């Protein structure tokens, strides 16, 4: 039933899954340096994670409050019924994101710093 090529395709599929798993879950994540805050899909704030401050973002359900601290950020309060983005707590890595979907506010961290300043070959 399975032919030689099928085994090749299955092996390729398994390596793809393994590569994705490593890349998405185990690859070292870089520290974040900027918080991007979107409301209704539009970027409203781009805040460097350098000093502590609190932002209030208006949404259709009410205000969402976001706390910024050196190196990390979190959603402090949100009018969403299930509070998923608040329960996520502090975000510190590039690529981390908290979505307050009913209120259409999102907080996403990006990082430009890699673990190395430069690499030579």
């Amino acid at each position, binding site marked *: 039933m399975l*032919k030689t090529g099928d085994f090749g*395709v299955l092996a390729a*599929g398994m390596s793809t899954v393994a590569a*994705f798993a490593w890349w*998405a*879950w185990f690859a070292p994540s870089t520290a974040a340096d900027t918080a*991007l805050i979107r409301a209704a899909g539009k970027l409203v704030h781009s805040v460097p994670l350098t000093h502590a401050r609190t932002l209030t973002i208006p949404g259709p359900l009410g205000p969402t409050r976001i706390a910024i601290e050196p190196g990390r950020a979190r959603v402090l309060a949100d009018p969403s019924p299930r509070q998923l983005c608040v329960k996520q707590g502090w975000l510190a890595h590039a*690529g981390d994101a908290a979505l307050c979907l009913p209120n259409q506010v999102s907080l996403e961290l990006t990082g430009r710093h890699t673990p190395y300043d430069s690499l030579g070959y």
Partner: protein
Amino acid sequence: MTASGIELAVTADDRRIARLAALALGLTLAEAAIPSPVPGVKPGLANIVILMVLLQYGWRTAAWVSGLRILAGGLLLGTLFSPGFWLSAAGACASLAVLAVARHLPPRHFGPVSLSVLAAFAHIAGQLALAAAWLLPGIAILKLLPVFATAALVFGTINGIAVARLQQRMALAAPASDRRQSGPCPTL
């Protein structure tokens, strides 16, 4: 005597496509009743039909059946033109595109399992591409990528084996000479 109204000529091809699409639709509806732990992870049983159609009647018929299944599935499940519908359509388009190429793989070495796995990966790739571009732009959907890829591998393999077994059964049941012409609808 003149015929009243507009008459559309219905060819045998049309009837066959409709019958096969109904078959795929039945599996889609049955599958919608199965609870899934992760939204979007489904066995994709209708792809068994699509793959059988591709192997028996060619790519064009498979594309028709796939398109009709998604449209009618959207109507019956009440998801027509919702984000879920478009995700489904994007997945189907990507998987048909890959199948258009993959069906030319030498059949000596590549059976239905290869086609099914490749189509399943294309399916999630199409869905995730649309989701990343349109529904959740800029947000790391990538953390779920391994989950979707695993589902594609597992269900693609299972569906492919189902197709391979069905083909064996049909090869036994019917003489191999003119199965491509106008065989009866494959009974699943």
